């Protein structure tokens, strides 16, 4: 037995954990068919950990949904498999490739895979009849996300209407939806990037190895370091360099940049982040950089 709270004070990390667990249980109790959108990144892994805690010792009362872009890092997929196995969870994979073949998504050669995920995702939600989808979005990531409710209502087209959000008071979440609509649920709304890392550190959570500094061949493009691979090759004037790098987010490997780093464990990452001068999306997500409203536009269309 542990007795750590003699003064009845809960640290901020414990408060965040309690809030997220509350959200998981609320959704599991009130929605007919929830699903957890799992990207394999650190945020969705932290979600999994919180869900594990929320329902222990029962198994997760919902499956995981992964949108397979065909461009995921191998390290991310293997960590996913190890989590799925340990929790005995059910995994539903929605492939962008299949969605293109079935005509749900158009591949015009210009749209990034992250954007095409929208179609594959909405299609999978509709086909499976999911009524609530947990996402790992945090409000500190981006200005439009900073505005989003924990329960974020999506219409029949999966769209978010930022001007018509439902009031959300206290911890009384309103899960009412009509047929065909669904709710996005963001249990990590109030966590910051630093909180996520502190939690990973404290809980000794298994995450993909590419989050830690390692040597990699990279090329600098548009101010981002991109990893050399099948899709990324040096263009004229660019030089390939070997650098110690780590990823701050793990999306589609053609769009996700890495940062130079010597941090090989969570404590070192926490130190680096505490003094970082650039947001994680600003540094490493090509798809958010096109316009000031890039994220808002994608969210309206039904992006995570």
């Amino acid at each position, binding site marked *: 037995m*542990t*007795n*750590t*709270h003699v003064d*009845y*004070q*809960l*640290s*901020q*990390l*414990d408060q965040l954990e*309690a809030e997220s*667990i*509350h959200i998981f*249980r*609320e959704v599991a*109790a009130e929605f007919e068919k929830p699903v957890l959108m799992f990207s394999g990144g650190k945020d969705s892994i932290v979600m999994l950990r919180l869900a*594990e*805690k*929320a329902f*222990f*010792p*029962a*198994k997760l009362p919902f499956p995981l949904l992964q949108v397979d872009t065909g461009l995921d890092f191998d390290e991310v997929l*293997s*960590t996913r498999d190890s989590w799925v196995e340990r929790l005995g969870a059910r995994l539903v994979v929605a492939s962008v490739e299949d969605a293109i073949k079935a005509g749900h998504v158009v591949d015009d050669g210009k749209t990034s895979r992250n954007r095409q995920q929208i179609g594959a995702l909405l299609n999978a939600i509709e086909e499976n009849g999911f009524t609530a989808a947990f996402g790992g979005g945090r*409000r*500190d990531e981006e*200005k*439009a*996300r*900073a*505005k989003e409710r924990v329960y974020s209502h999506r219409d029949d087209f999966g769209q978010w209407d*930022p*001007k018509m959000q439902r*009031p*959300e*008071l*206290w*911890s*009384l979440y*309103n899960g*009412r*939806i009509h047929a065909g609509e669904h709710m996005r649920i963001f249990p990590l709304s109030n966590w910051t990037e630093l909180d996520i890392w502190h*939690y*990973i*550190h*404290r809980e000794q*959570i*298994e995450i993909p190895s590419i989050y*830690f500094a390692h040597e990699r061949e990279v090329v600098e493009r548009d101010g981002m370091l991109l990893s050399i691979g099948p899709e990324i090759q040096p263009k004229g004037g660019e030089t390939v360099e070997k650098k110690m790098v780590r990823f701050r987010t793990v999306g589609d490997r053609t769009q996700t940049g890495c940062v130079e780093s010597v941090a090989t*464990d969570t*404590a*070192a990452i926490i*130190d680096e982040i505490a003094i*970082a001068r*650039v*947001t994680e999306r600003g540094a490493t997500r090509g798809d958010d950089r096109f316009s*000031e*409203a890039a994220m808002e536009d994608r969210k309206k269309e039904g992006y995570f």
Partner: protein
Amino acid sequence: MASTPQTTDAHTTAQGEMDLLRFATAGSVDDGKSTLIGRLLLDSKSIFEDQLEAVESTSQSKGYDYTDLALLTDGLRSEREQGITIDVAYRYFATPTRKFIIADTPGHIQYTRNMVTGASTADLGLVLVDARQGLTEQSRRHAVLLSLLRVPHLVLAINKMDLVDWSQEVYEKIHREFTTFATKLNIPDLEVIPISALQGDNVVNRSENTPWYSGPTLMHHLEHVHVASDRDLVDTRFPVQYVIRPKSDQYHDFRGYAGQVAGGVLKKGDEVVVLPSGMTSTISKVELFDTEIAEAFPPMSVTIHLEDDVDVSRGDMIARPKNAPKPSQDIDAMICWMTTEPLKPRQKLAIKHTTRMGRAMVKDIQYRLDVNSLHRDQEAGELALNEIGRVQLRTTVPLLCDPYSKNRTTGSFILIDEATGVTVGAGMINSAS
């Protein structure tokens, strides 16, 4: 290949151990709320370079003389176009001792429901007034809402002092005006600070322009205001949220009641009563995930085990036999109405209270509160959008509630329009019978 973190240095636990303050801004349109939040973030070095660059270049391209710090929180396209806040934005920053969750709310009356959203969970309300204008109807409305929502700490920030020549008289006049108004409200803790959000005076750094002011800077106050004692550790309230029954070979007989503690302290050996059935039992174990813990208190999310096989399901409440709310279907509450179609007597709505859903009928609208004069208009008969009034409800299921003044969790509810599914009302219970 996957790897597990290895180091467990003590220094990295600091962030995890610090405490949390949630605060919400309030006040009229253009009083400078978003600018102030931008200033707080900037001066506490919580703004990243790319964020600041984006805001600087937008300000320049719009032809502004200075960087519009409100752009740091006004994240929606229409907000940037109109230069106003429409919906609440949540921002985060931390100092060595505290993490802050800020809800930057809109001042425009049309978006009052979004202000209420941001303020409902706040420990502290930060009301801004424009020094040139003094208190407006909207600043009064927001002060009333904060007091109804029982936000326990209030700061009145008298902003744009740069535009009134840092006048002590102006500061004192607004200070007096507000204190007079506030005597009729429930505001246990008030601090009045003269600031310039635009230039940063008395926000993080003490101003040389206000030598007559000896109180704390805003940041100093936010860092030191004492919030721990705002919680109820006496009256045990555990709304059952979810029953965990693994139905696996290993945990065949496991039956745990999961939920978030709303009040009091729960521990092994406590005699408890389950409401509304009234059955009694004893707590046999309190668990957090896979670990047995000695005590659970607000706002922990835990799992409770009982010694006896009593019938417990979602929506029930675990309390103490000698200290339990009386199940009641007649509710007297203050309601903040949040939709265009007015609230009328005999109207039927869905109601959510703790983990309990039911239906409610409006029996009577006793009065509407005039936010300027605090006059109670008993002839009102209905509540229009953004109006506040005292209402009697009859519910289909008994609510296990306390007065909101005693417990913000068991004393609050939301009303939902059954046709649209939209949240249309926020309720704060006065009494129940």
